[in-house]
Protein backbone atom coordinates (compact mmCIF):
# COMPACT_ATOMS: atom_id res chain seq x y z
CA UNK A 1 0.00 0.00 0.00
CA UNK A 2 2.87 2.29 0.80
CA UNK A 3 4.07 1.82 -2.76
CA UNK A 4 0.78 3.18 -4.07
CA UNK A 5 0.95 6.11 -1.67
CA UNK A 6 4.49 6.78 -2.79
CA UNK A 7 3.69 6.92 -6.51
CA UNK A 8 0.23 8.46 -6.29
CA UNK A 9 1.32 12.11 -6.81
CA UNK A 10 3.28 11.21 -9.93
CA UNK A 11 0.35 9.21 -11.27
CA UNK A 12 -2.06 12.06 -10.62
CA UNK A 13 0.27 14.38 -12.48
CA UNK A 14 0.29 11.90 -15.35
CA UNK A 15 -3.51 11.75 -15.33
CA UNK A 16 -3.62 15.55 -15.41
CA UNK A 17 -1.32 15.56 -18.42
CA UNK A 18 -3.49 12.97 -20.16
CA UNK A 19 -6.49 15.22 -19.62
CA UNK A 20 -4.58 18.24 -20.93
CA UNK A 21 -3.61 16.33 -24.06
CA UNK A 22 -7.22 15.41 -24.71
CA UNK A 23 -8.80 18.73 -23.84
CA UNK A 24 -6.40 20.56 -26.13
CA UNK A 25 -6.49 18.05 -28.97
CA UNK A 26 -10.20 17.41 -29.11
CA UNK A 27 -11.34 20.98 -29.95
CA UNK A 28 -8.61 21.12 -32.57
CA UNK A 29 -9.85 17.82 -33.96
CA UNK A 30 -13.39 19.19 -34.02
CA UNK A 31 -12.33 22.31 -35.92
CA UNK A 32 -10.27 20.37 -38.41
CA UNK A 33 -13.04 17.77 -38.70
CA UNK A 34 -15.64 20.44 -39.46
CA UNK A 35 -13.36 21.85 -42.14
CA UNK A 36 -12.88 18.38 -43.60
CA UNK A 37 -16.61 17.66 -43.52
CA UNK A 38 -17.41 20.90 -45.34
CA UNK A 39 -14.66 20.22 -47.84
CA UNK A 40 -15.84 16.66 -48.37
CA UNK A 41 -19.39 17.62 -49.16
CA UNK A 42 -18.29 20.36 -51.53
CA UNK A 43 -19.19 20.11 -55.21
CA UNK A 44 -15.74 21.26 -56.21
CA UNK A 45 -13.43 18.30 -56.60
CA UNK A 46 -10.44 20.39 -55.57
CA UNK A 47 -11.87 20.37 -52.05
CA UNK A 48 -13.76 17.11 -51.82
CA UNK A 49 -11.19 14.73 -53.22
CA UNK A 50 -8.20 15.72 -51.03
CA UNK A 51 -10.46 15.57 -47.98
CA UNK A 52 -11.65 12.11 -49.00
CA UNK A 53 -8.11 10.86 -49.53
CA UNK A 54 -6.97 12.34 -46.22
CA UNK A 55 -9.85 10.74 -44.31
CA UNK A 56 -9.35 7.32 -45.88
CA UNK A 57 -5.60 7.33 -45.31
CA UNK A 58 -5.90 8.40 -41.68
CA UNK A 59 -8.66 5.90 -40.93
CA UNK A 60 -6.83 3.13 -42.76
CA UNK A 61 -3.61 3.29 -40.76
CA UNK A 62 -3.03 2.63 -37.05
CA UNK A 63 -2.40 5.67 -34.87
CA UNK A 64 0.87 4.22 -33.60
CA UNK A 65 2.17 4.08 -37.18
CA UNK A 66 1.15 7.70 -37.64
CA UNK A 67 2.95 8.64 -34.42
CA UNK A 68 6.17 7.01 -35.57
CA UNK A 69 5.81 8.42 -39.06
CA UNK A 70 5.30 11.97 -37.88
CA UNK A 71 7.55 12.04 -34.84
CA UNK A 72 10.54 10.03 -36.05
CA UNK A 73 10.15 10.11 -39.83
CA UNK A 74 8.75 13.51 -40.66
CA UNK A 75 10.42 15.12 -37.65
CA UNK A 76 13.85 14.01 -38.83
CA UNK A 77 13.23 15.19 -42.39
CA UNK A 78 11.94 18.58 -41.24
CA UNK A 79 14.93 18.94 -38.95
CA UNK A 80 17.54 18.51 -41.69
CA UNK A 81 15.88 21.20 -43.80
CA UNK A 82 15.68 23.46 -40.72
CA UNK A 83 11.93 23.77 -41.18
CA UNK A 84 10.78 22.66 -37.76
CA UNK A 85 11.75 20.41 -34.93
CA UNK A 86 9.21 17.99 -33.59
CA UNK A 87 11.27 16.94 -30.58
CA UNK A 88 8.69 18.24 -28.13
CA UNK A 89 6.31 15.45 -27.22
CA UNK A 90 3.58 17.96 -26.36
CA UNK A 91 3.48 19.52 -29.80
CA UNK A 92 3.84 16.25 -31.65
CA UNK A 93 1.37 14.43 -29.43
CA UNK A 94 -1.32 17.08 -29.67
CA UNK A 95 -0.80 17.40 -33.42
CA UNK A 96 -1.08 13.66 -33.97
CA UNK A 97 -4.17 13.25 -31.80
CA UNK A 98 -5.84 16.23 -33.48
CA UNK A 99 -5.02 15.07 -37.02
CA UNK A 100 -6.03 11.49 -36.36
CA UNK A 101 -9.32 12.34 -34.69
CA UNK A 102 -10.20 15.03 -37.22
CA UNK A 103 -10.76 12.27 -39.76
CA UNK A 104 -13.20 10.51 -37.43
CA UNK A 105 -14.96 13.70 -36.36
CA UNK A 106 -15.47 14.80 -39.95
CA UNK A 107 -17.49 11.64 -40.48
CA UNK A 108 -19.62 12.48 -37.45
CA UNK A 109 -20.19 16.01 -38.75
CA UNK A 110 -21.18 14.67 -42.16
CA UNK A 111 -23.59 12.17 -40.66
CA UNK A 112 -25.02 14.93 -38.47
CA UNK A 113 -25.68 17.21 -41.43
CA UNK A 114 -27.13 14.35 -43.45
CA UNK A 115 -29.47 13.52 -40.60
CA UNK A 116 -31.29 16.83 -41.06
CA UNK A 117 -33.80 16.25 -43.79
CA UNK A 118 -33.14 17.99 -47.07
CA UNK A 119 -36.67 19.37 -47.11
CA UNK A 120 -35.74 21.65 -44.23
CA UNK A 121 -32.99 23.23 -46.29
CA UNK A 122 -35.34 23.61 -49.23
CA UNK A 123 -37.94 25.26 -47.02
CA UNK A 124 -35.38 27.63 -45.56
CA UNK A 125 -34.05 28.59 -48.98
CA UNK A 126 -37.54 29.11 -50.34
CA UNK A 127 -38.26 31.41 -47.41
CA UNK A 128 -35.42 33.57 -48.63
CA UNK A 129 -32.65 32.58 -46.30
CA UNK A 130 -29.16 32.56 -47.63
CA UNK A 131 -27.34 29.25 -47.52
CA UNK A 132 -25.21 30.54 -44.66
CA UNK A 133 -28.28 31.47 -42.65
CA UNK A 134 -29.79 28.12 -43.47
CA UNK A 135 -26.69 26.33 -42.21
CA UNK A 136 -26.34 28.24 -38.95
CA UNK A 137 -30.03 28.67 -38.07
CA UNK A 138 -31.66 25.53 -39.44
CA UNK A 139 -29.23 22.70 -40.02
CA UNK A 140 -26.70 23.20 -37.23
CA UNK A 141 -29.14 23.54 -34.30
CA UNK A 142 -30.86 20.32 -35.33
CA UNK A 143 -27.65 18.43 -36.02
CA UNK A 144 -25.72 19.30 -32.85
CA UNK A 145 -27.78 17.27 -30.34
CA UNK A 146 -27.37 14.20 -32.53
CA UNK A 147 -23.66 14.71 -32.92
CA UNK A 148 -22.93 14.95 -29.22
CA UNK A 149 -23.08 11.21 -28.37
CA UNK A 150 -20.58 10.17 -31.08
CA UNK A 151 -18.35 13.08 -30.08
CA UNK A 152 -18.30 11.99 -26.47
CA UNK A 153 -17.68 8.44 -27.58
CA UNK A 154 -14.72 9.59 -29.63
CA UNK A 155 -13.47 11.71 -26.75
CA UNK A 156 -13.30 8.60 -24.58
CA UNK A 157 -11.46 6.85 -27.39
CA UNK A 158 -9.02 9.74 -27.50
CA UNK A 159 -8.51 9.47 -23.76
CA UNK A 160 -7.56 5.86 -24.27
CA UNK A 161 -5.49 6.40 -27.39
CA UNK A 162 -3.46 9.09 -25.67
CA UNK A 163 -1.83 6.19 -23.79
CA UNK A 164 -0.05 5.32 -27.04
CA UNK A 165 1.73 8.68 -26.89
CA UNK A 166 3.96 7.13 -24.24
CA UNK A 167 6.02 5.66 -27.12
CA UNK A 168 7.25 9.18 -27.86
CA UNK A 169 7.98 9.77 -24.16
CA UNK A 170 5.06 12.08 -23.59
CA UNK A 171 4.61 12.58 -19.85
CA UNK A 172 1.11 11.22 -19.59
CA UNK A 173 -0.28 8.54 -17.30
CA UNK A 174 0.96 5.48 -19.19
CA UNK A 175 4.55 6.66 -19.47
CA UNK A 176 4.55 7.46 -15.74
CA UNK A 177 3.23 3.93 -15.21
CA UNK A 178 5.94 2.42 -17.39
CA UNK A 179 8.61 4.42 -15.61
CA UNK A 180 7.56 3.16 -12.19
CA UNK A 181 7.05 -0.41 -13.39
CA UNK A 182 10.58 -0.28 -14.71
CA UNK A 183 11.90 1.06 -11.40
CA UNK A 184 10.30 -1.45 -9.07
CA UNK A 185 9.66 -4.37 -11.33
CA UNK A 186 9.17 -6.81 -8.45
CA UNK A 187 5.55 -5.84 -7.84
CA UNK A 188 3.99 -4.40 -10.99
CA UNK A 189 0.35 -5.31 -10.30
CA UNK A 190 -0.50 -2.52 -7.78
CA UNK A 191 0.93 0.05 -10.19
CA UNK A 192 -1.14 -1.29 -13.09
CA UNK A 193 -4.20 -1.40 -10.87
CA UNK A 194 -3.67 2.23 -9.88
CA UNK A 195 -3.33 3.32 -13.51
CA UNK A 196 -6.43 1.36 -14.51
CA UNK A 197 -8.43 2.90 -11.67
CA UNK A 198 -7.32 6.39 -12.72
CA UNK A 199 -8.30 5.72 -16.35
CA UNK A 200 -11.67 4.38 -15.22
CA UNK A 201 -12.19 7.46 -13.06
CA UNK A 202 -11.61 9.63 -16.11
CA UNK A 203 -13.60 7.59 -18.65
CA UNK A 204 -16.59 6.13 -16.80
CA UNK A 205 -18.28 9.36 -15.59
CA UNK A 206 -18.12 10.81 -19.10
CA UNK A 207 -19.50 7.63 -20.58
CA UNK A 208 -22.38 7.48 -18.08
CA UNK A 209 -23.37 11.07 -18.74
CA UNK A 210 -23.24 10.36 -22.45
CA UNK A 211 -25.46 7.31 -22.10
CA UNK A 212 -27.97 9.19 -19.99
CA UNK A 213 -28.06 11.94 -22.59
CA UNK A 214 -28.43 9.35 -25.35
CA UNK A 215 -31.39 7.73 -23.63
CA UNK A 216 -33.05 11.09 -23.16
CA UNK A 217 -32.47 12.07 -26.75
CA UNK A 218 -33.75 8.76 -28.06
CA UNK A 219 -36.91 9.23 -26.05
CA UNK A 220 -37.28 12.74 -27.43
CA UNK A 221 -36.89 11.74 -31.07
Amino acid sequence: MSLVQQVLPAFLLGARNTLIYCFVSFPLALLLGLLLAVMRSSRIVWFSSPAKIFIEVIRGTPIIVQIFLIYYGLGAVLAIYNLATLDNAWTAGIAILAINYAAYESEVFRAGFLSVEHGQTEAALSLGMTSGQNFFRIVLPQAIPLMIPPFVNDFIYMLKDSAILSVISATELTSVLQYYVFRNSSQPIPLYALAIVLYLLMALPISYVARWYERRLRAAL
Partner: protein
Amino acid sequence: MQQTQTITTVEPRTRSWLPVINALYYVVLAIALLGFGYYLYLNLSLITLYLPFLLQAAALTIGISVVSMVLALIFGLIGALARLSRFALIRWIAIVYVEVVRGTPIFVQLLLWYYGIGYLLSKAGFDPYTIAFNIMTVFQSNSFVPLLFSAFFYGILGLSFNYGAYLTEVFRTGIESVDKGQTEAALSLGLNSRQSMRHIVLPQAIRITIPPFTNYFITLIQDSALLSVLGVTELEETMGSFAYPLIDPNQKLFVFILGAMVYLAICYPLSLLARFLEGRFARAYRTSGEKIDVLRADMLDSDMLGKQVVSFAEDEGESE
Protein backbone atom coordinates in the same frame (compact mmCIF):
# COMPACT_ATOMS: atom_id res chain seq x y z
CA MET B 1 -48.91 34.67 -98.34
CA GLN B 2 -47.08 32.19 -96.43
CA GLN B 3 -45.59 33.00 -93.24
CA THR B 4 -42.96 30.73 -91.96
CA GLN B 5 -42.17 31.16 -88.47
CA THR B 6 -39.37 29.18 -87.08
CA ILE B 7 -39.24 29.47 -83.42
CA THR B 8 -36.05 28.26 -81.99
CA THR B 9 -35.99 28.33 -78.30
CA VAL B 10 -32.48 28.58 -77.18
CA GLU B 11 -32.14 28.16 -73.47
CA PRO B 12 -29.72 30.68 -72.16
CA ARG B 13 -27.14 28.33 -70.80
CA THR B 14 -25.32 29.50 -67.82
CA ARG B 15 -21.78 28.76 -68.54
CA SER B 16 -20.45 26.66 -65.74
CA TRP B 17 -16.75 26.45 -65.28
CA LEU B 18 -17.13 23.79 -62.65
CA PRO B 19 -16.66 20.78 -64.95
CA VAL B 20 -13.57 22.38 -66.44
CA ILE B 21 -12.08 23.12 -63.06
CA ASN B 22 -12.95 19.63 -61.88
CA ALA B 23 -11.39 18.07 -64.95
CA LEU B 24 -8.27 20.11 -64.27
CA TYR B 25 -8.17 18.58 -60.80
CA TYR B 26 -7.90 15.09 -62.21
CA VAL B 27 -4.98 16.19 -64.35
CA VAL B 28 -3.24 17.55 -61.26
CA LEU B 29 -4.15 14.39 -59.32
CA ALA B 30 -2.65 12.24 -62.06
CA ILE B 31 0.52 14.33 -61.99
CA ALA B 32 0.66 14.02 -58.21
CA LEU B 33 0.23 10.26 -58.43
CA LEU B 34 2.96 10.10 -61.04
CA GLY B 35 5.14 12.17 -58.73
CA PHE B 36 4.45 9.76 -55.89
CA GLY B 37 5.27 6.88 -58.24
CA TYR B 38 8.54 8.60 -59.08
CA TYR B 39 9.22 9.02 -55.35
CA LEU B 40 8.69 5.27 -54.95
CA TYR B 41 10.93 4.65 -57.97
CA LEU B 42 13.71 6.76 -56.48
CA ASN B 43 13.65 4.55 -53.41
CA LEU B 44 13.35 1.33 -55.39
CA SER B 45 16.42 -0.11 -53.70
CA LEU B 46 14.78 0.30 -50.30
CA ILE B 47 11.58 -1.27 -51.58
CA THR B 48 13.31 -4.33 -52.99
CA LEU B 49 15.30 -4.62 -49.79
CA TYR B 50 12.52 -4.25 -47.23
CA LEU B 51 9.16 -4.96 -48.86
CA PRO B 52 9.45 -8.78 -48.80
CA PHE B 53 10.07 -8.69 -45.05
CA LEU B 54 7.30 -6.14 -44.55
CA LEU B 55 4.90 -8.39 -46.45
CA GLN B 56 5.89 -11.36 -44.30
CA ALA B 57 5.28 -9.25 -41.22
CA ALA B 58 1.95 -8.14 -42.71
CA ALA B 59 0.98 -11.80 -43.05
CA LEU B 60 1.83 -12.25 -39.38
CA THR B 61 -0.26 -9.18 -38.51
CA ILE B 62 -3.22 -10.62 -40.40
CA GLY B 63 -2.73 -14.01 -38.76
CA ILE B 64 -2.61 -12.48 -35.27
CA SER B 65 -5.69 -10.41 -36.04
CA VAL B 66 -7.72 -13.35 -37.32
CA VAL B 67 -6.82 -15.54 -34.34
CA SER B 68 -7.58 -12.68 -31.95
CA MET B 69 -10.88 -11.95 -33.63
CA VAL B 70 -11.98 -15.59 -33.38
CA LEU B 71 -11.08 -15.65 -29.69
CA ALA B 72 -12.75 -12.26 -29.19
CA LEU B 73 -15.86 -13.69 -30.80
CA ILE B 74 -15.88 -16.42 -28.17
CA PHE B 75 -15.26 -13.95 -25.34
CA GLY B 76 -17.99 -11.72 -26.77
CA LEU B 77 -20.57 -14.49 -27.09
CA ILE B 78 -19.90 -15.71 -23.56
CA GLY B 79 -20.03 -12.11 -22.35
CA ALA B 80 -23.31 -11.37 -24.13
CA LEU B 81 -24.97 -14.52 -22.82
CA ALA B 82 -23.68 -13.71 -19.33
CA ARG B 83 -24.95 -10.17 -19.69
CA LEU B 84 -28.44 -11.47 -20.52
CA SER B 85 -28.30 -14.17 -17.86
CA ARG B 86 -31.00 -14.66 -15.27
CA PHE B 87 -28.50 -14.72 -12.41
CA ALA B 88 -27.58 -11.32 -11.07
CA LEU B 89 -24.06 -12.37 -10.09
CA ILE B 90 -23.16 -13.52 -13.62
CA ARG B 91 -24.76 -10.40 -15.04
CA TRP B 92 -22.67 -8.23 -12.75
CA ILE B 93 -19.43 -10.02 -13.64
CA ALA B 94 -20.17 -9.38 -17.31
CA ILE B 95 -20.97 -5.72 -16.64
CA VAL B 96 -17.73 -5.20 -14.70
CA TYR B 97 -15.77 -6.94 -17.47
CA VAL B 98 -17.27 -4.73 -20.15
CA GLU B 99 -16.97 -1.47 -18.22
CA VAL B 100 -13.41 -2.01 -17.01
CA VAL B 101 -12.12 -3.14 -20.39
CA ARG B 102 -13.90 -0.40 -22.32
CA GLY B 103 -12.83 2.25 -19.84
CA THR B 104 -9.10 1.57 -20.03
CA PRO B 105 -6.63 1.85 -22.90
CA ILE B 106 -5.82 -1.36 -24.75
CA PHE B 107 -2.20 -0.25 -24.59
CA VAL B 108 -2.21 -0.43 -20.79
CA GLN B 109 -4.06 -3.74 -20.90
CA LEU B 110 -1.43 -5.28 -23.15
CA LEU B 111 1.34 -4.05 -20.85
CA LEU B 112 -0.55 -5.47 -17.90
CA TRP B 113 -0.99 -8.87 -19.56
CA TYR B 114 2.61 -9.25 -20.59
CA TYR B 115 4.71 -7.35 -18.06
CA GLY B 116 2.33 -7.63 -15.13
CA ILE B 117 0.33 -10.85 -15.16
CA GLY B 118 2.72 -12.70 -17.44
CA TYR B 119 5.66 -11.76 -15.26
CA LEU B 120 3.96 -12.94 -12.07
CA LEU B 121 2.73 -16.17 -13.67
CA SER B 122 6.17 -16.98 -15.02
CA LYS B 123 7.56 -16.49 -11.52
CA ALA B 124 4.85 -18.79 -10.23
CA GLY B 125 5.89 -21.41 -12.76
CA PHE B 126 3.51 -20.86 -15.69
CA ASP B 127 5.47 -19.81 -18.74
CA PRO B 128 3.70 -20.23 -22.09
CA TYR B 129 6.99 -20.51 -23.93
CA THR B 130 8.32 -23.33 -21.74
CA ILE B 131 5.03 -25.19 -21.88
CA ALA B 132 4.79 -24.92 -25.67
CA PHE B 133 8.44 -25.90 -25.93
CA ASN B 134 7.92 -28.98 -23.80
CA ILE B 135 4.81 -30.01 -25.70
CA MET B 136 6.53 -29.62 -29.03
CA THR B 137 9.52 -31.53 -27.70
CA VAL B 138 7.24 -34.51 -27.32
CA PHE B 139 6.50 -34.21 -31.05
CA GLN B 140 10.22 -33.72 -31.70
CA SER B 141 9.70 -30.35 -33.35
CA ASN B 142 10.37 -27.77 -30.70
CA SER B 143 12.25 -25.57 -33.15
CA PHE B 144 8.85 -24.45 -34.44
CA VAL B 145 8.15 -22.62 -31.19
CA PRO B 146 9.20 -19.00 -31.71
CA LEU B 147 11.41 -17.44 -29.04
CA LEU B 148 8.76 -14.80 -28.48
CA PHE B 149 5.97 -17.27 -27.91
CA SER B 150 5.07 -15.72 -24.55
CA ALA B 151 4.69 -12.30 -26.14
CA PHE B 152 2.48 -13.79 -28.86
CA PHE B 153 0.43 -15.62 -26.27
CA TYR B 154 -0.20 -12.65 -24.01
CA GLY B 155 -0.55 -10.25 -26.92
CA ILE B 156 -3.27 -12.29 -28.57
CA LEU B 157 -4.90 -12.90 -25.20
CA GLY B 158 -4.89 -9.18 -24.44
CA LEU B 159 -6.27 -8.22 -27.85
CA SER B 160 -9.05 -10.78 -27.77
CA PHE B 161 -9.92 -10.02 -24.15
CA ASN B 162 -10.25 -6.36 -25.04
CA TYR B 163 -12.29 -6.85 -28.19
CA GLY B 164 -14.40 -9.47 -26.44
CA ALA B 165 -15.78 -6.67 -24.27
CA TYR B 166 -16.70 -4.55 -27.28
CA LEU B 167 -18.26 -7.50 -29.05
CA THR B 168 -20.22 -8.32 -25.90
CA GLU B 169 -22.02 -5.01 -26.27
CA VAL B 170 -22.44 -5.54 -30.01
CA PHE B 171 -24.01 -8.96 -29.53
CA ARG B 172 -26.14 -7.80 -26.64
CA THR B 173 -27.49 -4.87 -28.65
CA GLY B 174 -28.06 -7.19 -31.58
CA ILE B 175 -29.98 -9.72 -29.51
CA GLU B 176 -32.00 -7.02 -27.77
CA SER B 177 -32.84 -5.36 -31.08
CA VAL B 178 -34.86 -8.40 -32.11
CA ASP B 179 -38.44 -7.72 -31.18
CA LYS B 180 -39.68 -9.47 -28.03
CA GLY B 181 -42.76 -10.52 -29.96
CA GLN B 182 -40.64 -12.84 -32.08
CA THR B 183 -39.50 -14.79 -29.04
CA GLU B 184 -43.03 -14.87 -27.69
CA ALA B 185 -44.36 -16.13 -30.99
CA ALA B 186 -41.66 -18.81 -31.14
CA LEU B 187 -42.40 -19.92 -27.58
CA SER B 188 -46.12 -20.01 -28.20
CA LEU B 189 -45.52 -22.14 -31.30
CA GLY B 190 -43.89 -24.69 -29.04
CA LEU B 191 -40.21 -24.02 -29.53
CA ASN B 192 -38.21 -24.15 -26.34
CA SER B 193 -36.10 -21.16 -25.33
CA ARG B 194 -32.89 -22.60 -26.76
CA GLN B 195 -34.55 -23.33 -30.09
CA SER B 196 -36.06 -19.89 -30.28
CA MET B 197 -32.65 -18.36 -29.55
CA ARG B 198 -30.95 -20.58 -32.12
CA HIS B 199 -33.52 -20.42 -34.94
CA ILE B 200 -35.36 -17.15 -34.41
CA VAL B 201 -33.35 -14.57 -32.48
CA LEU B 202 -29.73 -15.21 -33.46
CA PRO B 203 -30.25 -15.29 -37.25
CA GLN B 204 -31.90 -11.89 -37.05
CA ALA B 205 -29.40 -10.53 -34.54
CA ILE B 206 -26.42 -11.55 -36.68
CA ARG B 207 -27.63 -9.41 -39.57
CA ILE B 208 -27.43 -6.35 -37.36
CA THR B 209 -24.10 -7.24 -35.82
CA ILE B 210 -22.23 -7.79 -39.08
CA PRO B 211 -21.46 -4.13 -39.93
CA PRO B 212 -20.09 -3.24 -36.46
CA PHE B 213 -18.29 -6.57 -36.42
CA THR B 214 -16.34 -5.76 -39.58
CA ASN B 215 -15.69 -2.28 -38.21
CA TYR B 216 -14.20 -3.79 -35.06
CA PHE B 217 -12.14 -6.20 -37.13
CA ILE B 218 -10.49 -3.30 -38.92
CA THR B 219 -9.74 -1.49 -35.65
CA LEU B 220 -8.41 -4.81 -34.29
CA ILE B 221 -5.94 -5.02 -37.18
CA GLN B 222 -4.87 -1.48 -36.41
CA ASP B 223 -4.57 -2.15 -32.70
CA SER B 224 -2.49 -5.25 -33.35
CA ALA B 225 0.27 -2.75 -34.18
CA LEU B 226 0.43 -2.11 -30.44
CA LEU B 227 1.85 -5.60 -30.00
CA SER B 228 5.13 -4.09 -31.11
CA VAL B 229 5.65 -2.83 -27.55
CA LEU B 230 5.71 -6.47 -26.44
CA GLY B 231 8.36 -7.19 -29.05
CA VAL B 232 6.12 -9.26 -31.32
CA THR B 233 7.66 -8.99 -34.78
CA GLU B 234 4.54 -7.90 -36.62
CA LEU B 235 4.36 -5.18 -39.24
CA GLU B 236 4.86 -2.18 -36.97
CA GLU B 237 7.81 -3.71 -35.11
CA THR B 238 9.47 -4.87 -38.35
CA MET B 239 9.02 -1.46 -39.91
CA GLY B 240 10.52 0.26 -36.86
CA SER B 241 13.44 -2.12 -36.67
CA PHE B 242 14.26 -1.30 -40.29
CA ALA B 243 13.77 2.43 -39.91
CA TYR B 244 15.66 3.23 -36.71
CA PRO B 245 19.15 2.21 -37.84
CA LEU B 246 18.87 4.27 -41.03
CA ILE B 247 20.88 7.47 -40.77
CA ASP B 248 19.44 9.32 -43.75
CA PRO B 249 16.16 10.90 -42.54
CA ASN B 250 14.65 10.70 -46.03
CA GLN B 251 15.16 6.96 -46.12
CA LYS B 252 13.83 6.67 -42.58
CA LEU B 253 10.68 8.55 -43.52
CA PHE B 254 10.31 6.40 -46.62
CA VAL B 255 10.36 3.16 -44.64
CA PHE B 256 7.63 4.53 -42.36
CA ILE B 257 5.59 5.56 -45.39
CA LEU B 258 6.07 2.11 -46.91
CA GLY B 259 4.83 0.48 -43.71
CA ALA B 260 1.83 2.80 -43.55
CA MET B 261 1.04 1.92 -47.17
CA VAL B 262 1.04 -1.78 -46.33
CA TYR B 263 -1.38 -1.11 -43.48
CA LEU B 264 -3.55 0.91 -45.85
CA ALA B 265 -3.44 -1.92 -48.39
CA ILE B 266 -4.80 -4.24 -45.70
CA CYS B 267 -7.39 -1.96 -44.13
CA TYR B 268 -8.83 -0.05 -47.07
CA PRO B 269 -10.18 -3.05 -49.00
CA LEU B 270 -11.63 -4.33 -45.74
CA SER B 271 -13.42 -1.05 -45.13
CA LEU B 272 -14.79 -1.15 -48.67
CA LEU B 273 -16.00 -4.67 -47.95
CA ALA B 274 -17.55 -3.47 -44.72
CA ARG B 275 -19.40 -0.71 -46.56
CA PHE B 276 -20.68 -3.26 -49.05
CA LEU B 277 -21.82 -5.57 -46.25
CA GLU B 278 -23.45 -2.64 -44.52
CA GLY B 279 -25.42 -1.93 -47.66
CA ARG B 280 -26.24 -5.60 -47.97
CA PHE B 281 -27.27 -6.46 -44.43
CA ALA B 282 -29.15 -4.72 -41.70
CA ARG B 283 -29.77 -1.39 -43.32
CA ALA B 284 -32.56 -1.82 -45.78
CA TYR B 285 -34.40 1.41 -46.42
CA ARG B 286 -36.32 2.75 -49.33
CA THR B 287 -37.10 6.37 -48.63
CA SER B 288 -34.80 9.15 -47.57
CA GLY B 289 -36.79 9.45 -44.36
CA GLU B 290 -35.95 5.88 -43.42
CA LYS B 291 -32.34 6.53 -44.28
CA ILE B 292 -32.28 9.47 -41.91
CA ASP B 293 -33.89 7.39 -39.17
CA VAL B 294 -31.20 4.74 -39.58
CA LEU B 295 -28.52 7.40 -39.51
CA ARG B 296 -29.90 8.87 -36.32
CA ALA B 297 -30.22 5.48 -34.67
CA ASP B 298 -26.61 4.77 -35.61
CA MET B 299 -25.36 7.98 -34.08
CA LEU B 300 -27.22 7.31 -30.86
CA ASP B 301 -25.86 3.81 -30.43
CA SER B 302 -22.62 4.39 -28.59
CA ASP B 303 -22.59 0.85 -27.18
CA MET B 304 -22.36 -0.54 -30.68
CA LEU B 305 -20.55 2.38 -32.18
CA GLY B 306 -16.87 1.90 -31.48
CA LYS B 307 -14.45 4.04 -33.40
CA GLN B 308 -16.10 4.42 -36.76
CA VAL B 309 -13.58 3.27 -39.32
CA VAL B 310 -16.49 2.60 -41.63
CA SER B 311 -18.69 5.55 -42.47
CA PHE B 312 -21.93 6.15 -40.65
CA ALA B 313 -24.90 4.40 -42.22
CA GLU B 314 -24.92 4.86 -45.95
CA ASP B 315 -21.96 6.32 -47.76
CA GLU B 316 -21.86 8.22 -51.05
CA GLY B 317 -24.57 10.58 -49.87
CA GLU B 318 -23.39 13.10 -52.45
CA SER B 319 -25.96 12.06 -55.03
CA GLU B 320 -28.98 13.96 -53.94
